[in-house]
């Protein structure tokens, strides 16, 4: 066997060796070592956006529900005032008020906790999500109020 043939044979053998690849995290590790911040994966970006949008939608719906509730209270103010100032025993009124205050105070820590976790989920700039959520919440309330209106006979 001559040298050229040996060379060619060894060359062919070396060429046939497969190429290997480093792990999937290799680029991120090198870029981090160079001081670049790691990029979130597309899935992570989507999950974060979905989480933020859900938080803002929930906040929007809660705000609108609070507004609707206050409107309801305002509309029924006469009845409520009548109930509060009805000629009953003053002691009973005071007991009723204290009971209501105690029940409300029980809800305060839970409500604050829920608001805090909602606030943590909100992104720094959430105006686009807020706009979308307001529109969506508006549609939901409109649809619900139309149905209610329809059930009560409507105005034809």
């Amino acid at each position, binding site marked *: 066997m001559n040298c050229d043939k040996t060379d060619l*044979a060894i060359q062919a053998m070396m060429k046939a060796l*497969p190429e290997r690849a*480093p792990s999937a995290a290799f*680029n991120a590790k090198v870029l981090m*070592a*160079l001081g670049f911040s790691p990029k979130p994966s597309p899935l992570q970006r989507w999950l974060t956006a979905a989480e933020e949008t859900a938080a803002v939608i929930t906040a929007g719906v809660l705000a609108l529900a609070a507004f609707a509730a206050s409107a309801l209270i305002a509309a029924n103010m006469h009845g409520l005032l009548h109930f509060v100032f009805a000629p009953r025993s003053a002691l009973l009124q005071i007991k009723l008020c204290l009971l209501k205050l105690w029940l409300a105070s029980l809800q305060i820590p839970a409500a604050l906790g829920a608001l805090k976790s909602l606030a943590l989920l909100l992104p720094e700039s959430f105006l686009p999500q807020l706009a979308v959520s307001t529109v969506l919440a508006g549609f939901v309330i409109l649809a619900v109020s139309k149905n209610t209106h329809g059930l009560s006979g409507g105005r034809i």
Partner: protein
Amino acid sequence: MVNEKDYQLVQRCLQGDESAFEELLNASKNQIFTFVLRMAQNAEDAEDITQDAFVKAFRKLDSYNPEYPFITWLFRIAHNTCVDFLRAKKPQSVSLDDADSPLDVPEDGPTVEENVAFAFQTEEAERLLASLPPLYREALLLQYREDLNCADIAGILQIPEGTVKVRLFRAKAAMKAKLERLAGR
């Protein structure tokens, strides 16, 4: 002659363009990792060495000479990082004595080509290559896998061209001897 594509990418990197770093990484990481893996013989070590080599290269990008291909410059850094690693791990594995000691080269035999077919089975070929001293292994990989000429290899290994030729001759002789032994078993 300036390698325009490499030059443009390096310029973008020097301006802090992260995507250019990624482009350079993606274009060369497998080639460098494969070379380092066959030198280090361990995937974890190879990944650490390759990472170290790229970080060193990217930090010294301003010293890259676009007259030469970027990959050749990377191979040089990878080689130096590899040698440092192997010296720290097993000082005897990169002893210059390995390269300069006389090698018992057997007479030409008729069975080498036939047995190359056997060695083509990847595992056997990898085993044969791994059994060579690192300096011979490195020379063979750079010449036959990376298609580099003796001058480029000399630049990467920072040794005279004559020494590269000697190492290649001894590497091929050693490989041939191993193939012959394989035929006899």
